[in-house]
């Protein structure tokens, strides 16, 4: 499945409730108060709904940064364009 880079930024922005300019590859879990356990869950669900996938629990827990999310999604067949 091909996906535009921008969609990841949008899903992070919406799920965490933060401005899009804060969503960088280095943005890490718990580095902002907004990225807490509940926001993390909302992010997981947003990614699953958008890409039509179901993440394994270990991948949900391992999604500790934007860059990590990108690489995990690649395991599920997402190709960035």
């Amino acid at each position: 499945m091909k996906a535009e880079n921008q969609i990841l930024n949008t899903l992070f922005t919406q799920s965490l409730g933060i401005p899009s300019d804060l969503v960088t590859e280095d943005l890490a879990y718990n580095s902002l108060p907004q990225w807490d356990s509940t926001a993390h869950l909302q992010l997981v669900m947003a990614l699953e709904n958008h890409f039509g996938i179901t993440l394994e629990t270990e991948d949900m827990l391992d999604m500790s940064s934007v860059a990590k999310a990108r690489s995990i999604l690649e395991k599920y067949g997402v190709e960035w364009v």
Partner: protein
Amino acid sequence: MITTEKTDRATSPVGTAPAGTALQKLSPWLSGGGFSLRPLIEEDRDLVLTWRNSPAVRLQMVQSEEIDRPTHERWFERQATQAQSLHAQSLQLMAQKGDRPVGVCNLMTLQGEPLAEASTAEMGYYLGVDDVRGSLLAFVPALLTLNGAFEGLGLQQVQARVKASNLAAIRFNQTLGYTTVESGPLLKMVLSASDYRQASAGLQRLVRPAGNQARAVNGNMKTKL
């Protein structure tokens, strides 16, 4: 009905609970996702007081003053004896990740009736360790407790009281299906069995054994071996 697998009775983390007690009804539901819940034991006595008085926990409590040791001792003795009683009105459960205690969940009836016969109870929950508090894993002890409350005890409703300033807890509860029915400095949030089942359906994988997960790859569901 929640489809999470119940713990085999023989391997229940609470051991052998007296028949008919709230603990016995809850026990098949008290482990999953690498976590387990069990009644308080002597070794928890000091740890629970330390957690309860830590700023991170205390300041979010309805009663946010520090608990002195004599008060804690009296409370702890009551809880330790209640767990095995048919008439227990409350149950304090230590959440463990593996063998490591990480927090406390509790259920308490509101009208003084035994928990084992109640239709409504209030739930409290706090984590004493930062690495779980800040993680998706924070949902696991809550899911285990609520699965047991609705499916084991057969409660119709679980309530929670949350400080209006505790936005993280409010959002956490809303994710589990709670709705706010009374506002003010202290919110009253309620959760029906049906709302919980609907809201938690996507979360139950967190408490399932790893081998029972499934994933979709390019839209095709594949069972993980």
